[in-house]
């Protein structure tokens, strides 16, 4: 095991992929300078500026260049600096990358990785803090990966580069600089395999969490055990598309209750899809409605106390778990939806 950080794991994984396969190139705004978070630090020095290409601020065309290069046999990794800017590249990603293999009847394939990062917490405001991954899961043909730790980032990025399909690799900026340990050398992690972080005996609830919320889910589970004497399983799907539904459904069949948690706005978030798929697969086992944790239906505010209140975390997961655990124990007393972040209806 080696000590590292999430961004160092990204940079070293890219370097290893470029060493092993000359078809791998990296492009994006400022990537040859290492980028604002240093996720591509050192690559230009080792591989030169032909393979590590700074691009103009032209997200749409740069994304399309990546697609055309992938169709012609390269293995490009493109960085969109903030997921908020993926809006500018969505035409290429949605209309070209996702459909090229299909529309060509299998003649073309698009082995590209689009790395980007989202998430709030740095007072960057509503245009540099969003969590937009659910949009991408709605487009057949894209794979969507959301690692929650450095080891998964390294393993999943290795798999994403080797994948013959367009893979959107969504990082969370809040995870970037924590000290973590990773296997050395890192092992490829198959896309489509969930990770179970906590599977105690006699667990009474399953917490399914994405990206930054995985650590919060473990914290909430610890508190449930210490304060309430309730054990919880914690599962990180790691990839949204394809989704390891079996792992989630098997857990919920054991526990009978579930909370799904992510940083994105709850309404229309991927948690809705998780909840729908879990209830369809484990309906007869459910003791309570599946609870969703996410951000409220507002843009991300800048002011520190407002942003802190906006971001879902361990406390929200804990309270959602309590609602699920206590379901049916009281007379039908309607609880306060607004107490759980993000449970306010759109426009309400």
């Amino acid at each position, binding site marked *: 095991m080696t000590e590292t950080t999430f961004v160092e794991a990204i940079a070293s994984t890219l370097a290893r992929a470029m060493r092993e396969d000359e078809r791998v190139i990296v492009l994006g705004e400022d990537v040859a300078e290492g980028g604002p978070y240093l996720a591509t630090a050192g690559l230009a020095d080792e591989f030169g500026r032909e393979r590590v290409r700074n691009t103009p601020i032209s997200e749409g*065309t740069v*994304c*399309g260049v990546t697609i055309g290069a992938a169709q012609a046999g390269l293995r490009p990794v493109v960085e969109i600096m903030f997921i908020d800017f993926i809006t500018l590249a969505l035409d*290429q990603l949605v*209309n070209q990358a996702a459909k090229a293999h299909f529309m060509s009847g299998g003649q073309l394939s698009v082995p590209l990785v689009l790395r980007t990062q989202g998430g709030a917490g740095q007072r960057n405001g509503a245009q540099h803090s969003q969590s937009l991954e659910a949009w991408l899961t709605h487009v057949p043909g894209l794979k969507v990966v959301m690692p929650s730790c450095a080891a998964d980032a390294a393993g999943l990025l290795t798999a994403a580069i080797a994948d013959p399909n367009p893979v959107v690799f969504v990082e969370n900026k809040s995870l970037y600089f924590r000290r973590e340990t990773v296997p050395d050398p890192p092992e490829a992690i198959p896309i489509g395999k969930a990770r179970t972080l906590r599977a105690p005996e006699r667990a009474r609830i399953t917490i399914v969490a994405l990206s930054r919320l995985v650590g919060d889910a473990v914290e909430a589970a610890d508190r449930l055990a210490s304060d309430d004497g309730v054990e919880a399983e914690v599962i990180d799907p790691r990839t949204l598309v394809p989704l390891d539904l079996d792992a989630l459904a098997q857990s919920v069949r054991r526990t009978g209750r579930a909370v799904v948690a992510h940083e994105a706005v709850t309404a229309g978030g991927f948690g809705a899809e998780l909840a729908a798929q879990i209830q369809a697969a484990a309906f007869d086992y459910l003791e309570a409605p599946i609870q969703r944790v996410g951000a409220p239906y507002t843009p991300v505010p800048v002011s520190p106390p407002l942003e802190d209140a906006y971001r879902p975390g361990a406390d929200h997961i804990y309270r959602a778990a309590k609602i699920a655990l206590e379901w049916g124990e009281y007379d039908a007393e309607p609880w306060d939806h607004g107490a759980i972040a993000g449970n306010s209806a759109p426009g309400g």
Partner: protein
Amino acid sequence: MPTSALDADTARDLLRTMWRIRLFEERVAQLKRSLQVHGLIHLSIGGEGVAAAVCRQLRDDDAVYSGHRAHGHAIAKGAPLDRLMAELMGRESGLCHGLGGSMHLVDAEHGFMGATGVVGGNLPLALGTALAQHLRGADQATVVFFGDGAVQAGHFNESINLAALWKLPVIFVCENNGFAEFTSRAEHSTVERVSDVVAPYGFDRETVEGSDVPAVYEAFASFLEHARAGKGPYLLECLTFRRRGHYEGDPEKYRDPEAEREWAARDPIARFTHVDDEAARQIEREAGEQIEAAVRFARESPFPDPEIATRLVYAT
């Protein structure tokens, strides 16, 4: 007689390609009216000369990207007529097994890397393929066909900047037919000539008349030679005319009868005098026979098994 370096074989090839496109598209228009060809159909009748003159000079390992008006480019790049017709008729034996259709044709074997239904969306893809060619150090080139309507799209402006910056072996071929969908270029831009739009980026550009096939051929030949040598991007603007609507079924309320008459007289096939009459008639007859054989091939082919649609969402 035009003075031109076209040799006899080349001239016959060009005429053959133009007739194949013309008769294919006329047949497609009929089949569309009888609902045997499916979806939005955009025809290039009157503009065949550009596709023929450009693609005649390309190899299979050169890439071509096209837009929504793509049949001619695919045919000129070598796509087989029978599988092309089968694709438009939604059959299993179609180039894309019926998953692409008229606006999303691909024939990778012949370097026809794809049509797209999103105006301007093909330009970045062409740059990417040209980047791969550049990094491999090959003498391949990429051609992207687009209309004057794409020039006002963000992707065009981003793409010409990046192609010039990276000196990519890409040749932008603009078929300027004066209309973007239903409205004239004058309603879309204050810049009349597309070749003027790219002037500040410093790459060579030329405007020729698209129905003057030898002129297109010669202008493109020079650009292709330089692109193969790694001297960067080029833009060839071909002034042409859309003798049919934007799509089959277009109400065409914007039509100007005088322009119709003028361009009918400038038809690229009619004014191509490099092949003697007898040989030209034989080329036309053979092309017609090939089109009918393609229609028979497509009709005899089954529709695809629905299972293919789920199987081809992801590559394995």
